């Protein structure tokens, strides 16, 4: 069935016969395993194209999201780490195959007449491969991405006169930023791959036209060539074996190492040591020997001369010999260049400072450091938060471990105004015992470990340099905005030791006004401001009826008045010795008022004894007075007794008693 469909397609289009004719290329004797590298490079290019397209399904080329989407691919997407790893290792493998392919072509003398143009197209493909690599490693937007691009584009900037324009053109502006990322993305995923594909097709077409070089034959003398095999299946089988091997190697590397990801791009990190990908290392090392204004010689001129030499070399080399041993000069030059580049590469690797590896305990401390989110406030050489001291500058290695531990447990002991949250009992001793040695390792060579992404990402505003200073103003502008992510208790993680600055001077005096006009300000930190007020005020809350209530405040809470009010505050209203109520014929009225309002009002100013000073008895009469009054009054029934100041004896006593009995007495 399938055969019949294929036969029909071929009858209609002849495409299958054409492919067959193309694939069944006769190959000269001696073509074999050394000739697999071109196919291997093509296979890896296809693998890069496919994995690249798949990565684009989840990737977003913007500085806000690029790093995050790459992390998402690494952590959340099924096989994401593997697919990204394949793309990463495939890039290196592809470059390696391209170089091996070139070396094989060189040592076999295959670039010689009549195949010079195939070599030239190949050099074009090499440059495109390097371009793909350079544009590709900006895309994850991690430290390596950022710095490699800064350095790489600055090299272009060293060209005299027009360097700055070239650099800005590549970057899409003055700095490496959003515009750099989007243009690198477009170039990496579209322009360069399309060019590679087109050039590779042309390259292959030329190879098919001019045949693979018969090994060992002198240029121009390819007459009695013996053909012993076909491209398909003989050579294709070898290519497939190599392709499977390369895929297995890349998969293995991807499985074990994934694709290395560094911390998110951060131009403030001073301890980061930017190093390019391994195949650019030799160029990187070379630049160390070209100081100052000669920089562009090493960075631009030498590579440019090298490329031009590669392009015109097949036309300059007139020696018809192909076997390497019969053209010793060409062979030794190539070996020397290779050795030179390798030596530069090795020197670059050796000269890269290596951070001291952390011991098991220190590594655990590093994890504790991240788990406790110390990095939210403290930076290490610029990586991390800016609110606290940069720990790399703090010379913690010189501190006594026990002192450090006490500092962690109780920061206010060292600085009463410290806002660092104390590590409570929830952080166990073992964690602290690991954290302290880790902190003591921090110096100017230390780097912030890659942050574990926990919880939602911070909004862009929080990453601004002055956020820590600004946050109080932002809170005031829109407290509700903060509470979309933070619980109100969040403020307390720092502010337990530190009130907002507004609370510092004369706050207690002014707080009532703020609380009344901007209750949301209180709510930012105080979850239930009403209960907070009651905690102090209880009966003292200055509600609208306060003026009439204030005199009835009991003695204990009344002490609080002096927190806001000066001692002479009462006399502002209570002019002279008496309150205003005591004016206008007060004495006859005072009894009724006292009964009506309750005695507490009187007690604000007057002592308990005050009534008795005049009345001779407790006033107003207590509840059990009626039973006790015979005893109390017996001695004082005489005319002029205090009772008769209010009560008329005949009328009042007569309400209950018979009057003669009184008269008898």
């Amino acid at each position, binding site marked *: 069935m399938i055969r019949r469909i294929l036969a029909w397609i071929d009858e209609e289009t002849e495409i299958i016969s054409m492919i067959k004719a193309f694939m*069944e290329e*006769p190959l000269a004797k001696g073509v074999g395993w050394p000739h697999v590298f071109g196919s291997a490079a093509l296979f890896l290019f296809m*693998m890069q194209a*496919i*994995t690249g397209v*798949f990565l684009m*399904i*989840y990737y*977003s080329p913007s500085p806000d*999201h690029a790093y*995050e*989407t790459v*992390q*998402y691919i690494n952590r*959340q*997407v*099924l*096989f*994401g780490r*593997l*697919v990204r790893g*394949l793309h990463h290792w495939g890039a290196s493998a592809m470059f390696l195959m391209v170089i091996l392919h070139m070396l094989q072509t060189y040592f076999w003398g295959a670039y010689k007449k009549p195949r010079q143009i195939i070599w030239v197209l190949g050099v074009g493909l090499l440059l495109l491969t390097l371009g793909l690599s350079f544009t590709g490693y900006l895309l994850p937007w991690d430290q390596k991405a950022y710095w490699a691009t800064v350095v790489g584009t600055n090299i272009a900037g060293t060209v005299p006169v027009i360097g700055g324009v070239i650099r800005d053109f590549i970057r899409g502006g003055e700095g490496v930023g959003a515009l750099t990322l989007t243009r690198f993305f477009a170039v990496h995923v579209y322009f360069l791959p399309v060019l590679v594909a087109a050039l590779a097709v042309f390259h292959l077409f030329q190879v098919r*036209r001019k*045949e693979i070089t018969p090994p060992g034959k002198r240029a121009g003398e390819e007459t009695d*060539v*013996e*053909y*012993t*095999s*076909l491209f*398909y*299946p*003989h050579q*294709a*089988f070898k290519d*497939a*074996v190599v*392709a*499977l091997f390369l*895929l*297995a190697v890349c*998969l293995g590397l991807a499985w074990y190492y994934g694709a290395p990801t560094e911390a998110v791009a951060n131009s403030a990190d001073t301890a980061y040591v930017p190093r390019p990908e391994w195949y650019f290392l030799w160029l990187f090392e070379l630049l160390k020997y070209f100081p100052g204004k000669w920089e562009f010689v090493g960075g631009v001129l030498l590579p440019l001369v090298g490329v031009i030499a590669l392009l015109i070399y097949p036309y300059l080399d007139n020696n018809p010999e192909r076997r390497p041993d019969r053209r010793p000069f060409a062979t030794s030059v190539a070996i020397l260049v290779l050795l030179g580049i390798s030596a530069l590469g090795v020197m670059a690797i050796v000269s890269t400072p290596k951070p001291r590896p952390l011991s098991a305990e220190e590594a655990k401390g590093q994890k504790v450091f991240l788990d406790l989110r110390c990095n939210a406030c403290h930076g290490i050489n610029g990586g991390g938060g800016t609110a606290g001291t940069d720990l790399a500058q703090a010379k913690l290695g010189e501190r006594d471990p026990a002192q450090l531990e006490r500092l962690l447990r109780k920061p206010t002991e060292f600085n009463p105004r410290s806002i660092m949250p104390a590590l409570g009992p929830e952080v166990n001793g073992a964690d602290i015992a690991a954290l302290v040695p880790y902190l003591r390792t921090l110096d100017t060579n230390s780097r912030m470990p890659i942050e574990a992404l926990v919880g*939602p*990402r911070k909004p862009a505003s929080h990453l601004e340099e002055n956020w820590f200073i600004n946050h109080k103003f932002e809170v005031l502008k829109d407290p509700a905005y903060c509470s*979309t992510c933070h619980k109100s208790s969040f403020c307390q993680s720092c502010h337990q030791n530190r009130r907002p600055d507004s609370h510092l001077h004369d706050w207690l005096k002014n707080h009532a006004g703020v609380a009344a006009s901007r209750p949301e300000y209180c709510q930012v930190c105080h979850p239930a401001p009403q209960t907070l007020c009651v905690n102090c005020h209880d009966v003292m809350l200055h509600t609208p009826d306060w003026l009439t209530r204030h005199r009835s405040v009991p003695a204990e809470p009344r002490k609080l008045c002096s927190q806001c009010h000066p001692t002479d505050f009462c006399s502002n209203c209570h002019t002279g010795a008496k309150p205003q109520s005591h004016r206008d014929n007060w004495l006859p009225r005072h009894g009724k008022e006292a009964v009506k309002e309750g005695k507490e009002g009187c007690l604000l100013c007057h002592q308990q004894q005050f009534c008795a000073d005049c009345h001779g008895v407790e006033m107003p009469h207590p509840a059990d007075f009626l039973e006790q009054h015979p005893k109390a009054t017996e001695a004082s029934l005489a005319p002029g007794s205090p009772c008769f100041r209010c009560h008329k004896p005949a009328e009042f006593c007569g309400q209950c008693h018979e009057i003669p009995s009184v008269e008898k007495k």
Partner: protein
Amino acid sequence: MEKGKHERHHEVPATPEEMTRRRFLSYLTGLLAGIIALIAGIPLAGFVISPLLQKKREIWVKLGPASALIPGEPVKFIYSYQRIDGWFEKTVHNTVYGVESAKAADEIVVLSNICTHLGCGVRWDDGRRAFLCPCHNGVFDMEGKVVSGPPPKPLPRLRWKIAKGQILVRVEEV
């Protein structure tokens, strides 16, 4: 050149043993290509369908006070919740209608406003006393049942509960 190549093509020896060898190598090459496609294809396939395999999360979302319900009258609620959308987190806003029965106060239905036809947002038309879909003239009654138009099913009902005077609805989040 072209002519010469064809001549040389015939020079490649093609004995019966050689033809068998070629066929064997073709099959072997095909097998290797198949293995390559398989071990590269499985991760890539998983990579693409990965979002379908994410676990769904069900959460209760606060709708509003139960006292906002009016018996015999649909009340529109807009609720929002934090949703993890791939690699970022955002606030999602959705509309539902809470309908309290005119007869019994406990009989509440919470209707999604998503038309069961093709997913446009229906809205309550007070004049016609029905939910109208703005796209293809689907009409639902107050209980969400289809009155006329193309929708195949009544409006979806959300699970709800009332706690501390607030209506909560069950929202399925991917």
